[in-house]
């Protein structure tokens, strides 16, 4: 029970600590310990009842312990003492500012929001005071200067149409006054001033107000709550000195502009006769003064009529004083009952209508017939022209109305086109209706459907027609196509439609969909089909199909094609004219390229070289400046319509070669005259097609470069051969080793005489060594050995060697060192039999032309052979040396060479080489000079021409040179004629 009770309690506030039994009793706090503290924790002490009883802090000591102390005046040159204006707050306690203090800082309404009424009263009082004050008009200036400030309420009222002096409330007609009530509402009990004439006239005017004029309610004078603190009697108003002295009625109006003298004269009453005092001081208490002319109205006669006899009897105006009186009080007059009822509710800014609006008579709606059903049926329009008269007749009957006669058609029954015809206007271009956009087939179909629908009413509908109706629309074609698939007719029914669709001129095959992209041959067939469709072939389908396919396959494909063509047929011309293409095609493969390319650079450069500035060096492009740019430059836009900016661009295939055509075109020209010359010269011998030579010559394209002169060379060669063959045939002492297999070395060795000539012709476009390296690369181990040596030596020497190697061979070298002879011969056969199966046939076709590029590949096959003669390996090495980082001198590899004979020879050669160099240096100073001159070709030639003589003389000492020449010469000398035959045979092979 108890538990449940406690649980049910609702508790408020914080519970007291539970009293524990064993806790010692709390001692009550003694009185002196019961302290009150303020918000700052200071002890408060009882101060007085008015300030809440307590105060805290420092008392009457200006908030500080010491209290206010007068500060000493300190002023120095550096720190001038400022003028200190002490405020009263400086001498006040904190408490004084609190709510109950002397100077409470509280929130007060600003002047804007205080009511103006209060002010007016105060003003009046002040004005009164000022008048009473010893100097009249004391506060006048102050009043004048006071800012024109109105309270918010007054402003709002003014905005609502209220004017000062009016009461608040709805405008109303003024009732004619029954009696003249002193409107001022104030009774003057003492000194009664003469009433203002103007007031009276106002009263009188009121009497004659027209009926339709409404007036604002009278202003209500609020009850004056100014306390009476003077010993005067009730209602006593002090005498206005102005009025009293000058008799002027205007109270409070001080003419500022009259001179003081004037005023004083007024005061003294010495004004002119026109200033005759009308009123003067008059009243009960004053009697007639000595200066008074008339003695009238000395005594105030009080009449009973001046007093109200009935309480609340008469009310001024409408008696509302601006209030909205409760409704029942206003129900006095019947005529204005409505007005009165509305009085309270009328909206501000609105007035009651003077004339009640007429009540509109509402007529009842017509009665519906009994059997009326609120459903509307649209009558189908029967076109007599399209339907058969029989059907039309039936339709008419079924619909229960006869067709309207066209003659009876009124103006409003005509449609736009008919009206146009009547008016004689030309018809609009373009399709008039949606149906015009359909092609004829579709129209027919629609017509058929419509007809069927009409016939359907009569109940006659064939199976096929129903099917057609069902399939009508977009799916019709597909349905037919499927039908055609079932039937094995060669001409698919749908194909005709397709044909008509594709025959339209706007049909663009390029833009059409490619449905069989994954199957290129099929797509190709489809494209063919489409293109034929476009041309209007009737048998487009059959002709484009692959004849090799089976009947079944063909049937399938036929079906597919027709369907695809139907699906992706181009929109008809009229329809497509209504659409525009997308402005931006998202074609990734296209690239914007400037429409106009800058002219050929090389042309210009050449023109510049010729100092032909002018047309040749200038180009003009169409250039579109930005619209804003034109505006900023104050220039009319040269292309006002165009939206593009900059140079006009053209879309081109991104990966197209033609984009770079202009560049590639220029290349052969930039390649120099040599390339241009060599190209036309290239005989059928020229095997590999020549790459366009880049403008910059690098040592990497050396082999090809070497090839170029060779083309010319080969021709020379062939000619020379033919001439030399007869004469030199007996001279060949050496047996030709493997004549068919090693044609090249001798052939190449034969070249030099011609090459020299060629080189002469050739400009110094290239160090000759490269050329000859390439030429002689494969020919001899001797040369390579020397070159390998040369690697360690200076390049001058190398050049020298080359020059040495270039010694005219053959006939001149007949009496050469016999020891050297075997080397090439042994090497050559060694290479030949080894390489015989693989190398020669492979090399022959490519190398046969004798082109330098051919030489390298020729030499390369042999390395595959296990047993290598010296020549190929060295040749390779040489290549490495040329193209790669320089290898250490290959002397180390020499002993490893399999050709036993060549090893000692190599050593011998080395020595010989050095010897030769020495001897050369010693013997022929001419040579030295030439060595140092890298490219003195003419000199070289001379040297070569001279050389044979010394060589012949000391052929043994010039071992290396000899060996070189041996290597080159031996086969050459042997077989100048044989070579020719070999070449011919090779050629023959090639041509086979």
């Amino acid at each position: 029970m108890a538990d449940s009770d406690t649980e049910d309690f609702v508790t408020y506030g914080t519970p007291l600590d539970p009293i524990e039994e064993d806790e010692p009793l709390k001692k009550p706090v003694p009185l002196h310990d019961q302290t009150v503290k303020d918000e700052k924790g200071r002890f408060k002490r009882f101060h007085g009842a008015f300030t809440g009883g307590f105060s805290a802090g420092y008392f009457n000591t200006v908030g500080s312990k010491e209290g206010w102390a007068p500060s000493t005046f300190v002023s120095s040159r550096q720190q001038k003492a400022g003028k200190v204006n002490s405020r009263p707050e400086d001498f006040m306690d904190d408490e004084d500012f609190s709510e109950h203090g002397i100077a409470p800082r509280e929130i007060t309404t600003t002047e804007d929001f205080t009511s103006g009424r209060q002010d007016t009263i105060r003003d009046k009082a002040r004005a009164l005071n000022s008048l009473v004050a010893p100097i009249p008009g004391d506060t006048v200036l102050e009043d004048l200067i006071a800012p024109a400030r109105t309270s918010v309420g007054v402003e709002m009222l003014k905005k609502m149409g209220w004017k000062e002096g009016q009461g608040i409330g709805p405008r109303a007609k003024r009732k004619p006054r029954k009696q003249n009530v002193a409107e001022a509402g104030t009774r003057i009990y003492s000194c009664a001033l003469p009433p203002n004439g103007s007031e009276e006239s106002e009263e009188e005017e009121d009497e004659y107000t027209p009926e339709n004029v409404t007036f604002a309610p009278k202003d209500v004078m609020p009850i004056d709550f100014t306390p009476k603190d003077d010993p005067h009697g009730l209602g006593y108003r002090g005498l206005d000195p102005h009025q009293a002295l000058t008799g002027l009625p205007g109270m409070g109006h001080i003419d500022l502009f009259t001179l003081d003298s004037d005023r004083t004269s007024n005061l003294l009453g010495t004004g002119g006769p026109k200033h005759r005092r009308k009123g003067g001081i008059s009243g009960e208490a004053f009697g007639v003064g000595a200066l008074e002319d008339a003695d009238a109205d000395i005594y105030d006669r009080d009449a009973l009529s001046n007093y109200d006899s009935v309480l609340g009897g008469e009310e001024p105006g409408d008696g509302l004083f601006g209030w909205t009186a409760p409704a029942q009080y206003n129900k006095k007059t019947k005529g204005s009952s409505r007005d009165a009822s509305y009085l309270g509710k009328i909206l501000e800014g609105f007035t009651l209508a003077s004339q009640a609006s007429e009540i509109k008579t509402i007529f009842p709606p017509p009665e519906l017939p009994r059997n009326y059903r609120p459903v509307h049926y649209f009558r189908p329009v029967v076109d007599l022209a399209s339907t058969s008269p029989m059907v039309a007749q039936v339709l008419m009957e079924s619909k229960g109305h006869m067709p309207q006669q066209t003659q009876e058609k009124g103006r409003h029954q005509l449609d736009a086109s008919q009206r146009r015809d009547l008016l004689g206007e030309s018809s609009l271009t373009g399709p008039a209706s949606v149906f015009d956009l359909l092609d004829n087939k579709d129209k027919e179909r629609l017509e058929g459907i419509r007809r069927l629908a009409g016939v359907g009413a009569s109940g006659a509908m064939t199976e096929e027609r129903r099917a057609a109706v069902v399939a009508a629309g977009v799916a019709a074609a597909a349905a037919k196509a499927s039908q055609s698939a079932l039937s094995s007719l060669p001409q698919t029914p749908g194909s005709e439609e397709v044909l008509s669709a594709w025959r339209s001129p706007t049909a663009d095959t390029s833009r059409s969909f490619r449905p069989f992209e994954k199957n290129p041959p099929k797509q190709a067939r489809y494209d063919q089909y489409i293109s034929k469709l476009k041309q209007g072939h009737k048998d487009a389908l059959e002709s484009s199909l692959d004849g090799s396919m089976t009947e079944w396959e063909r049937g399938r494909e036929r079906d597919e094609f027709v369907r695809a063509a139907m699906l992706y047929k181009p929109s008809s011309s009229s329809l497509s004219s209504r659409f525009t293409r997308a402005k931006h095609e998202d074609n990734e493969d296209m690239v914007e390229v400037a429409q106009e390319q800058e002219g050929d650079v090389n042309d210009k450069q050449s023109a510049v070289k010729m100092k032909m500035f002018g047309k040749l060096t200038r180009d003009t492009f169409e250039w579109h400046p930005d619209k804003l740019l034109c505006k900023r430059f104050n220039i009319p836009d040269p292309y006002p319509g165009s939206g593009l900016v900059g140079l006009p661009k053209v879309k081109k295939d991104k990966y197209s070669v033609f984009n770079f055509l202009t560049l590639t075109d220029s290349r052969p020209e930039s390649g120099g005259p040599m390339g241009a010359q060599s190209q036309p010269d290239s005989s059928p011998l020229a095997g590999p097609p020549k790459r366009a030579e880049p403008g910059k010559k690098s040592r990497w394209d050396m082999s090809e470069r070497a090839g170029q002169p060779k083309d010319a060379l080969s021709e020379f060669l062939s000619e020379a051969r033919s001439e030399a063959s007869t004469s030199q045939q007996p001279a060949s002492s050496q047996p030709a080793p493997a004549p068919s297999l090693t044609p090249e070395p001798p052939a190449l060795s034969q070249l030099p005489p011609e090459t020299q000539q060629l080189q002469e012709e050739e400009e110094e476009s290239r160090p000759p060594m490269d050329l000859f390296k390439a030429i002689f690369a494969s020919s001899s181990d001797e040369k390579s050995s020397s070159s390998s040596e040369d690697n360690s030596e200076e390049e001058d020497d190398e050049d020298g060697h080359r020059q040495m190697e270039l010694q005219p061979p053959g006939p001149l070298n007949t009496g050469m060192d016999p020891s050297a002879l075997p080397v090439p011969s042994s090497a050559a056969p060694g290479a030949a039999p080894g390489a015989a199966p693989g190398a020669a046939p492979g090399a022959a076709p490519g190398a046969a032309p004798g082109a330098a590029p051919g030489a390298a590949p020729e030499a390369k096959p042999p390395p595959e052979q296990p047993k290598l003669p010296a020549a190929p390996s060295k040749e390779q090495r040489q290549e490495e040396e040329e193209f790669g980082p320089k290898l250490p001198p290959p002397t180390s590899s020499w002993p490893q060479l399999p050709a036993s004979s060549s090893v000692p020879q190599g050593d011998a050669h080395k020595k010989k080489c050095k010897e030769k160099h020495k001897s050369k240096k010693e013997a022929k100073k001419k040579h030295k000079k030439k060595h140092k001159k890298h490219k003195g070709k003419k000199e070289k030639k001379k040297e070569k021409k001279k050389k044979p003589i010394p060589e012949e003389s000391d052929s043994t000492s010039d071992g290396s040179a000899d060996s070189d020449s041996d290597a080159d010469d031996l086969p050459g000398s042997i077989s100048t004629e044989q070579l020719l035959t070999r070449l011919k045979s090779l050629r023959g092979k090639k041509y086979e």
Partner: protein
Amino acid sequence: MAFPLPRPQPPQLPHHLLRTVDCKQGAIRAVRFNADGNYILSCGGDKTLRLWSASRGTLLKTYSGHGYEVLDADGAFDNSHICSCSSDKTVILWDVASGLVSRKLRGHAGKVNCVRFNEEATVIVSGSIDGSVRCWDTRSRRPEPIQVLDEARDGVSSVKVSEYELLSGSVDGRVRRYDLRMGQLYTGHKNTSYKLDCCLSHKDTHVLSCSEDGYVYFWDLVEGSVSLKLPVGKATVQSLSFHPSEPRLLTAMEGSVKVWGAEPEDTVEDQGQQ
């Protein structure tokens, strides 16, 4: 009856050194007269742009705000704005009086070599090493240029703006003239080995060019012959600028700017000596 024109006088060439101004702002990259020739703009290597009085050689204002050396500058026709370009890829439009950046135009991909106002200072044309000429609008706050002329194949080294034409010289050896009236682009072709800075004299009678040998060469425009070889100093003459109306020349070498006049003006010299 019109009076016959006065006999054309031989052109006066500025060959008297009026004063030398040590700018103290690093290497002077460019020196320019303002529109009326009363003020000098010097673009320093210390990222500042300075405005000098041409008649007295006193420093009037320093404009700092570039992030790298200032390469070129130009003054607006009404002297209310200055535009300058810098290696920091920006073009800055300065308010002359306050010295504050009124617009910083970013968009070039490389350092901006040259900058010019158009006639009404409504467009700034700047050429950059990135091969583009950009036209910036000074009227709007648009951060992008009005138009980019990217026809040049190589860096644009100089830009000139006339009433209706834009001229741009490029390192690809071509001068391009963009004619706004016709909407056409003319591409000329010329081969110059190298170029420091050159300009035309005030009457277009002579072509002036800086040189690396410390001279300024005056070439006769028509004849093409050297008419005056003005020794400026030992170092390279970096930049020069000709007075728009008088025979006055500004040359910049290393850290100082020199003012040259046709005749030694006493008053001016006195001031200069002071």
